[in-house]
């Protein structure tokens, strides 16, 4: 079972308290009516589905109820970091150096 750190509660808790909420940092188009079908496809359906460090969202469903972001390696399932939704996207090279 994964152990996940909630950046709001500042506690590391079992996976069962959390729900996965898909890839992170996908911004909804600011002006929806000007967006082409291909851009809608990219926003709605295309995912990086990366094999390696993955930027993703989780929700502390059975805790504070808030969404937060995380970087998790999809090969080892190890979390490199979890951070609040309004924090900037952490740079991957720095995270990888830190996890060494």
């Amino acid at each position, binding site marked *: 079972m994964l152990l996940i750190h909630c950046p709001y509660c500042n506690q590391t808790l079992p996976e069962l308290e959390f729900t996965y909420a898909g890839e992170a940092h996908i911004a909804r188009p600011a002006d929806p009516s000007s967006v082409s079908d291909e851009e809608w496809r990219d926003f*709605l359906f295309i995912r990086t*589905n990366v094999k390696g460090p993955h930027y993703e969202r989780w929700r502390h469903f059975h805790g504070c109820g808030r969404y937060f972001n995380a970087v998790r390696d*999809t090969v080892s399932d190890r979390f490199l970091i979890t951070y609040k939704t309004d924090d900037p996207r952490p740079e991957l090279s720095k995270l990888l150096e830190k996890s060494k």
Partner: protein
Amino acid sequence: MTHFSALSLIKNALSGQKNWEPQWPDSEPKAEYDVIIVGAGGHGLGAAYYLAKEHGITNVAVIDKGWLGGGNTGRNTTIIRSNYLYDESAKLYDHALDLWDGLSQELNYNVMYSQRGVLMLAHNVHDVQSFQRHVHANRLNGVDNVWLSAEEAKEFCPPLDISPTARYPVVGAALQRRAGTARHDAVAWGYARGAAARGVDIIQNCPVTAIRRGPDGRVTGVETAKGFIGAKKVAVSAAGHTSVVMDTAGVRMPLESYPLQALVSEPIKPIFPCVVMSNSVHAYISQSDKGELVIGSGTDQYTSYSQRGGLPLIEHTVAAICEIFPIFNRMRMLRKWGGIVDVTPDRSAILGKTPVPGLYVNCGWGTGGFKATPGAAHTLAWTVAKDDPHPANAPFTLERFSTGRLIDEAAAAAVAH
């Protein structure tokens, strides 16, 4: 290729079983092929077989990073059915079911296809309404599916607990009698043997690291652990790793890869006559010919490439199985494993051409790829050979995610995902 028959069995028995030939050679790559198929699972090997047999294209290589049939082909719970809701799905899966019917004879290889029936349990009003809608839609499409009362379900599957006080009460069930199971490894082996006999090279333990394109954008071949191999056409049939492979050709996919888990019990004498699925509690169960109970679970909630999956899902599934079949609650489980399934937003496959000339893709089968094996293989071969889709796979395009013409089996909930 040795033709398997009663005579060949007797002959080899008399010579102490020492003169069986290998069923296919482990090939080294040539410099160039007409078609390269990435992924030597049932789908990829089957496509090579049909390319050779039905389209006369024999200069074909099937390349895999591991051993053939070692991915999801060897990791699924071997269930075959075609009771999907939408016309497009019913047509494609029933096309597969038609091919399953004669597959052992066609391949001269016993795939142990057993039409023992698949029973889908309804536990509440929503299940009843949804399954009855499926039954009606299926019958309109000529796909067999009937509605059973709880008592009829119990008669069909005696270990079932239908008492009204059960944790998951059974209020009825949908039964597809034509559905059943097959020996998953034998499907890969049968296709591999049939393809190799027609001149197809099967190259194992050779990861494809990139798809190469020429200045005109057309596919020129693949980069592998054994060097560059040229190809006029490349078909990617790489299940959970499709996004990774397609990315090297510059095609981004509407896919997410999740672990899907299964487990087997210790072997016991025949007790379980059919396949039972319970979508509400995400569990399905059948008994293999070896006697093990084969139990399927759901996908993990997070994307992952680790072929493991988390224990909470297995616990939930086994708990549900024990509630529905109290008779099994002291069974011991032997082993569990995970496979990486590639899931599309509408839970339907993508099978057809791509924006890159000469590049084809067969992916997005999610949790239900095994049942489609002959159909996917047959239509993929057709699409590659004619550069045009077969009527059965024509709606399953990559473009549907920009046109919005989705095949929304996700909402239809015919599948446990």
